[in-house]
């Protein structure tokens, strides 16, 4: 019964993915892509990977959708996708090769890193093994990931015209002061802030963490900006830039501190959990700021 549900869900996701890629208008493609992202998130729930499901729903479907919708008015009605022989042939060959791989890999259970990750959980500072992998075992990788986010933001900002560098992230929206969006922008952020902080806090022992919680915080800031409750920040302001680097800097400092206890990103014995939580909250704030500004885009472009 539940296998049938999984197959139906997979078929729906495949149909939505196809429809999104083949959609006639850009807006329809984006709308279908958001629905596709939600179904992919449900598939991760079915696999038992709730951490990934949260990230996919918040980042893969939500933030990516908002990001793309900003580009929706550019070319609302385009031509249907060109079905040229070579790309279709390459796609079909890719599908065939991957299916062979899927049929061949993992015929029988083998040795995995999962069991070893579980064995050392006590020293990793988190009861949620996914958080332990992200912040302890692969701390170096996650640190570089937050640096990649920052570099991406610099790349986006660098697309602004010379005179706009350091200017406000975007022009102000025109929103009626007592209107519906304005009220919504006042009602939701308090709830969202609590939810985001809860997701970061609970990430040490249950599904959640800095990326999922940070994304909720980013969404609340974006909503407040769209509803004109707060102005978009000046990208040149020292406070904003400090906010963007604070999390990765804290993570790096904690990692270097670990060398005093033997290894980079090895947490001080007895204080593993406080260290992980402090780094998680620092990261969440910087991730929230970086993600929100990535979605807002370069200063003043195209407005």
């Amino acid at each position, binding site marked *: 019964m539940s296998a049938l549900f999984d197959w139906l869900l997979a078929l729906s996701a495949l149909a939505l993915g196809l429809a999104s890629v083949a959609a006639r208008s850009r807006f329809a*493609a984006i709308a279908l892509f958001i629905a596709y992202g939600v179904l992919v998130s449900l598939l991760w729930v079915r696999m038992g990977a*709730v951490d990934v499901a949260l990230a996919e729903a918040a980042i893969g479907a939500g933030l990516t959708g908002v990001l793309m919708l900003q580009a929706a008015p550019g070319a609302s009605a385009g031509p249907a996708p060109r079905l040229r022989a070579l790309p279709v042939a390459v796609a079909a060959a890719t599908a065939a090769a991957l299916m062979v791989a899927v049929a061949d890999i993992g015929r029988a259970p083998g040795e995995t890193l999962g069991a070893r990750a579980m064995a050392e959980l006590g020293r990793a500072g988190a009861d949620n093994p*996914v958080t332990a992998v992200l912040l302890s075992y692969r701390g170096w990788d996650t640190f570089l990931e937050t640096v990649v986010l920052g570099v991406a933001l610099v790349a986006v900002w660098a697309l602004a015209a010379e005179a706009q560098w350091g200017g406000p992230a975007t022009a102000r929206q025109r929103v009626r002061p007592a209107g519906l969006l304005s009220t919504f922008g006042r009602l939701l952020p308090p709830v969202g802030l609590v939810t985001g902080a809860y997701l970061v806090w609970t990430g040490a022992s249950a599904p959640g963490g800095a990326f999922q919680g940070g994304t909720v915080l980013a969404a609340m800031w974006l909503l407040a900006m769209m509803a004109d409750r707060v102005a978009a920040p000046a990208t040149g302001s020292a406070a904003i830039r400090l906010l963007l680097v604070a999390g990765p800097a804290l993570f790096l400092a904690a990692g270097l501190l670990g060398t005093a206890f033997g290894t980079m990103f090895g947490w001080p014995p007895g204080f593993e959990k406080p260290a992980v939580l402090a780094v998680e909250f620092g990261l969440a704030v910087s991730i929230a700021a970086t*993600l929100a500004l990535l979605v807002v885009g370069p200063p003043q*472009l195209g407005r």
Partner: protein
Amino acid sequence: MSLFADPFALLGALLVAVGFAGLVGGADLVRRLIGFNVAGSGLFLMFGGLSGRMLGAPLPTGPDPVPQAMVITGIVVALAAIAIGIALARGLETVAPPDE
């Protein structure tokens, strides 16, 4: 365990091909980026599905945490790449509006 007992890895493989076709044959820049993203999430699903098969019975806390953490990293990096792509597409369309 039967090879096709669950649809996750198989669906991932098909989505990679669908996304690739969209990336190469897409009608405009944004729809090409959507293809890129569909292919990416297909790869993630393949990774998750295959790791579940390698693990056999799930751990007490659920599926293998190592691929999960790597997929979360991948989702975040994909967003960073898409943000640059969308900013480039918008900049291009401001300079040279698409003639449609």
